[in-house]
């Protein structure tokens, strides 16, 4: 088991991570969710021993890794947020380079490269220079080079940023497959809720350096068990209707997103007749009123008062 115990990281006066506690069990896919600047990258840098915390401890198999991270480094593969590849080398040359630094050589290295290229779907492009690749292909190769030395734990820092949906699905499926076939433990950071919901067994949610929620998907959604999320749809809204909703004490959270308004209200309050009345009063023609399934986005909205991608 890999643990972060009461970790704090300070940069001058700014605390990037504040008293964070977290653990990852063998074979799990754990999600670390939060908006940009939440402290996710700092947390995973500490977890992978690249960064020393200001206070707290990182433990692997109950041994502190702060001063002697060698045993942890041997079993970790890291996929940075940036494309950490040599753009002027081919896919195969990059693989050779990163394989060699892990002391792989000869036939072992050659076989491993073929195996990984197959897994990330780049066998046909192995001889091509990386700078000719699409964003999605570079991202796949970025993951591939982290898998060459058969790491037990794969730490992925927003591996799908800026790529097309097709490549994104491919990456998500690859991560799932690695976890299933090889029992690889994965720490996956993202600010895309749906990715984390799809992939992860357990989730940690961070905001402004704080861990604000953790647990399984269902456990986290239970935070909103006593509340309903209601979606209102109309062709257009007017200021009066929005002000009325904002001023209504029974509405805990509200988010206007184009033609849709999402409200979080107490479950024990029947607000539907009130909504109809407010709409009529403000001369707004409601087209649909739905009670939504709780999503992680709703939980984040509830916990922080803002949408995840704000």
């Amino acid at each position: 088991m890999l643990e972060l115990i009461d970790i704090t990281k300070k940069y001058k006066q700014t605390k990037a991570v504040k008293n964070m506690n977290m653990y990852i069990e063998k074979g799990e896919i754990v999600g670390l969710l939060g908006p940009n600047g939440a402290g996710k990258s700092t947390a995973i840098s500490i977890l992978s021993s690249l960064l020393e915390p200001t206070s707290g401890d990182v433990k692997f198999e109950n041994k502190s890794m702060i001063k002697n991270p060698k045993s942890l480094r041997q079993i970790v593969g890291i996929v940075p947020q940036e494309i950490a590849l040599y753009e002027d080398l081919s896919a195969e040359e990059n693989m050779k380079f990163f394989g060699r630094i892990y002391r792989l050589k000869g036939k072992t290295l050659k076989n491993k490269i073929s195996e990984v290229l197959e897994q990330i779907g780049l066998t046909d492009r192995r001889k091509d220079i990386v700078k000719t690749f699409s964003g999605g292909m570079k991202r796949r190769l970025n993951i591939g080079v982290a898998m060459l030395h058969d790491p037990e734990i794969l730490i992925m820092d927003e591996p799908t940023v800026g790529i097309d949906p097709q490549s994104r699905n491919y990456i998500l499926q690859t991560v799932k497959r690695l976890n299933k076939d090889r029992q690889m433990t994965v720490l996956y950071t993202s600010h895309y809720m749906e990715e984390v919901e799809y992939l992860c067994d357990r989730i940690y949610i961070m905001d402004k350096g704080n861990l604000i929620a953790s647990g399984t998907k269902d456990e986290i959604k239970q935070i909103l068990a006593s509340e309903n999320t209601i979606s209102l749809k109309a062709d257009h809204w007017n200021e009066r209707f929005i002000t009325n909703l904002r001023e209504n004490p029974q509405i805990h959270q509200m988010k206007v997103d184009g033609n849709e308004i999402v409200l979080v209200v107490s479950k024990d309050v029947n607000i539907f007749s009130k909504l109809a009345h407010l709409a009529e009063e403000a001369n707004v023609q409601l087209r649909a009123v739905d009670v939504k399934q709780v999503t992680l986005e709703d939980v984040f909205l509830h916990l922080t008062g803002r949408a995840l991608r704000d």
Partner: protein
Amino acid sequence: MRGILLAKFTTFIRKPWVFVLFTVMSIGFTLIIGYTEGNEDKITVPVAGAEEVRTGSIGKALEENEVYHFKWQEETDLKEIVRLGEAEAGIIIEETGYEMFIRVETPNVQLIEQTIANIYTEKIRENQVLELFQSETAAEEEAILTAYHESMDQPIFEITNDNFRNADSSQFDEGLHAIFGFTLFFVIYTIGYNVLPILIEKKEGIWDRMILSPLKKWEIYLANLVYSFFEGYLQIIIIFSVFHYLVGVDFQGGFAGILLIMLAYTFTIVSLGIFVTALVKNIQQFNAVLPILSVSMAMIGGAFWPLEIVQSDILLALAKLNPLTYGMEALNNLVLYNLPFEEILMPVSILILMGVIFMGVGIHLMEKIHI
């Protein structure tokens, strides 16, 4: 470490353009500034005179002068050249005397006048000798003058005049200065842009991947330093070889010595590159700092002009902190002044000391600041 070097060399082979550009620029600028017409060691002095004067003994003496290049002009052109300040002095030559035009009184003007006066004195002396021997035929005159010149070539004592740009002087050689200056200047860019990838690799996470691998940190640094050193030193070898073997520049037997001195200079510039890389926060800052640093180093360190003409105490004090100053000094001591080994060892030792300090502080800062 071998893996890092291999990746770097492969990248170099695929993308050698920065290296090629700075090597070509270094050679090109040196050729233009140090080896084009108009940059001779002799000072050009415009002279005017009638056809019989030009072809006579005075004209011949002017042409054979080793110190000045006397260039025949029309009288009006000569006056214009002097008026515009394109020449320090101009002289109208006649059989029995000369008229000198000067714009500003300089030490060279006095030397030019002395040279002209000597030519006329010599002419008078030859006439006196001929009168003394009362020669009757041209053959007799020639024989007498030959004997006279032979005796003058072996004088009891000799007085010579010189100027600061004389080829015989070892104080300053425009061609050699251009080679040294531009090589030392442009190699700062080549090395700088080779150290820059450390910053890029740190920012893009390649460095993180290497740190998590079984590679030792010193191996990562050493591989990067060796590669930057190699490329910088290769450029220096190419430039000096081009001038030595293709252009035919005489380094006065100091070619191997130059390459040895350049080992220390290259090491110091690699270290300076590491130091600068550690100080800047991003690639944009590095790209802004490098040209400012290299040009000011070249100006203060005497790459573009000899430090001997600099009067400012502040600039001369700043030059003492500049590695390029010591690179130039070591090369000049070796090639121009032919000074003994100890005189070359001094600037080389300062270069190595600077290199060690820059490297130590640079790596310490790099480790301290998480980029």
